[in-house]
């Protein structure tokens, strides 16, 4: 006959931060935010760079265009693609490598074709629609890619531009000057963009690393503090129990065969035994120390508690240790109230290596008392609230097994 306690929605507890901390800039997030900022800036730049050409054409630059249809197709293609590119980049908050690759291809082709669409002597003027967007492409490549890839794409764009305007270079010196100027701008902006964005990313990474280190140091200190607290608590408990008992006996005058003295000695011995696990490290294990202490305090109420621990994880979250300990104390209270027995066994084991994904800690509280029929009696208030309630609060589960005359076992598992 078993009864599974109804649990509220289980799930491991998450650390709850004060609301303002969640909104404040988290340094660990800095690289992602910097990358998004760079991507956003360049996307806006790209959209801005398709505006000048139609304006220039309207203001008279169309005189330099030899094949208006070709210039129109080139501009249309490049503008359409730039909008698509900017949308992708804004949506992903980063520049995907494949989009960059297509972008360089489109920009290089447009540079060649836009140059050819112009009269040879006008290919280096505003009549060439592909120059401004190509600068945006070079800037984006420098920000998105490491040095060699961005240098290669800059070089490719410079070559494409040159091959588009090459027919005009033999005609005038001004065409030469304009070509050199355009290529210098194309590469210069890219170099500056690359330096700035890589610098920003490095800063962001450094700040994230520092934040990580700080968090790790804080966690180390918290765990040291909790170990210290556990040790202090254990010393106090040892002082109040074992040491006091031994001192009183050594002073003489107490009759060691007095049942009260013997009961106290047995309780102290059970406490010491509970502090030592049969497997795994037990020094400073908070849960183990707490369980031994719970057992010792129940001994004052006349219950002998045998605590056996093995392989308990040393780093269970504080609320979980507290929840398990409280639920265990309540289960032992039930033993005193209902079982009619004078002994209880508490076992606590860590994760089972043969069933990964199972609970990290499993506790059982067992008595050999009169038991009950769970189908007839159902869970009492203590079981419902104090045990199941506490367990579901920490994301664990409680399970009771009993049968008349055969004792009762309460099993606590975390996480459920």
């Amino acid at each position, binding site marked *: 006959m078993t009864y599974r306690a109804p649990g509220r929605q289980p799930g491991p507890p998450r650390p709850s931060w004060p609301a303002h901390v969640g909104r404040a800039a988290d340094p660990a997030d800095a690289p992602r935010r910097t990358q998004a900022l760079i991507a956003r800036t360049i996307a806006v730049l790209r959209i801005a760079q398709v505006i000048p050409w139609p304006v220039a054409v309207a203001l008279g630059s169309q005189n330099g265009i030899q094949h208006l249809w070709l210039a129109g197709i080139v501009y249309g293609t490049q503008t359409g693609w730039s909008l698509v590119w900017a949308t992708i980049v804004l949506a992903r908050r980063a520049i995907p490598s494949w989009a960059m690759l297509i972008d360089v291809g489109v920009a290089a082709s447009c540079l060649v074709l836009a140059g050819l669409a112009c009269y040879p002597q006008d290919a280096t003027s505003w009549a060439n629609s592909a120059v401004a967007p190509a600068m945006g492409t070079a800037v984006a490549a420098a920000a998105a890619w490491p040095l060699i890839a961005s240098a290669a794409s800059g070089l490719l764009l410079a070559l494409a531009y040159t091959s588009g305007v090459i027919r005009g270079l033999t005609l005038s010196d001004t065409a030469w000057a304009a070509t050199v100027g355009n290529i210098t701008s194309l590469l210069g902006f890219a170099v500056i963009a690359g330096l700035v964005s890589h610098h920003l990313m490095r800063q962001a990474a450094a700040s994230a690393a520092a934040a990580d280190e700080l968090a790790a140091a804080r966690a180390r200190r918290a765990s040291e503090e909790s170990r210290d607290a556990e040790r202090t608590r254990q010393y106090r408990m040892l002082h109040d129990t074992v040491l006091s008992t031994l001192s009183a006996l050594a002073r003489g005058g107490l009759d060691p065969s007095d049942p009260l003295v013997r009961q106290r000695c047995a309780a102290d011995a*059970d406490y010491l035994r509970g502090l030592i696990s049969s*497997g795994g490290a037990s020094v400073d294990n908070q849960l183990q120390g707490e369980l031994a202490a719970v057992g010792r305090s129940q001994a004052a109420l006349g219950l002998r508690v*045998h605590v056996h621990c*093995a392989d308990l994880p040393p780093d269970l979250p504080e609320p979980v240790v507290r929840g398990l300990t409280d639920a265990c104390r309540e289960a032992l209270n039930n033993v005193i109230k209902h079982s009619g027995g004078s002994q209880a066994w508490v*076992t606590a*084991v860590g994760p089972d290596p043969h069933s990964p994904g199972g609970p990290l800690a499993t506790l*059982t509280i067992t008595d*050999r008392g009169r038991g009950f029929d769970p189908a007839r009696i159902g869970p009492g208030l203590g079981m419902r609230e104090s045990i199941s309630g506490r367990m579901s609060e920490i994301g664990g589960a409680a399970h009771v097994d009993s049968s008349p005359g055969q*004792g009762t076992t309460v099993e606590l598992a975390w996480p459920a």
Partner: protein
Amino acid sequence: MAGMITIAAIDDDRMLLAGLRAWLGPVDGIELTATAATVDEYLDAGPAPADVVLLDLNLRDGSTPAANVARLLDIGAAVLVVSTIPDAEHVLATIEAGAAGYVTKDNDLPALVSAIREVATGGTAVSPELAFVLSTDRRPERPRLSAQESLVLRVYASGATLQATARRAGVAYGTAREYLERIKRKYTDAGRPTRTKLDLVERAREDRLELDGLGPSS
């Protein structure tokens, strides 16, 4: 039980031996015939063989628990290992060395007497604390247990009575008991090859001593 069970106790704590003598004094059918601080001291006295030897797990003379068990088995005693704390490594070693059972010293008199009677009749004494040590054995070389055996072991290790263990595992009382004995036997069997090897080394050494000067025997 008709016959008298004779027991010996080996423990380096004199106070504990005195207490044990007083404790077992009034118990019918069990007689403490010898006490010693070490296995050497016990064997040197050339004792009338006791049916059951209560052996403290960690004697302070530097002897190994498993070797102590082996030496006592050699004179035909059943060994019930006792200790203050279930030190898993050595408890497992003594069980693999052939000890009949293990109990911690915090058990009450009826529990100890029942373990002694069980062991004296050739049975095994699987206490909840021994079951706990066996059920949390994480060594790669541990004997393979069936799912049912593991379940019975785990439930019994939680302190449940054998009756409650059988019900929860969905088996008959006798079956649960048989499972516990089978698990214990698996451990003893797992320890046998090592034991045999140790015996052979010992034998060979004795042979060499007898054939002193004639070169190593093969």
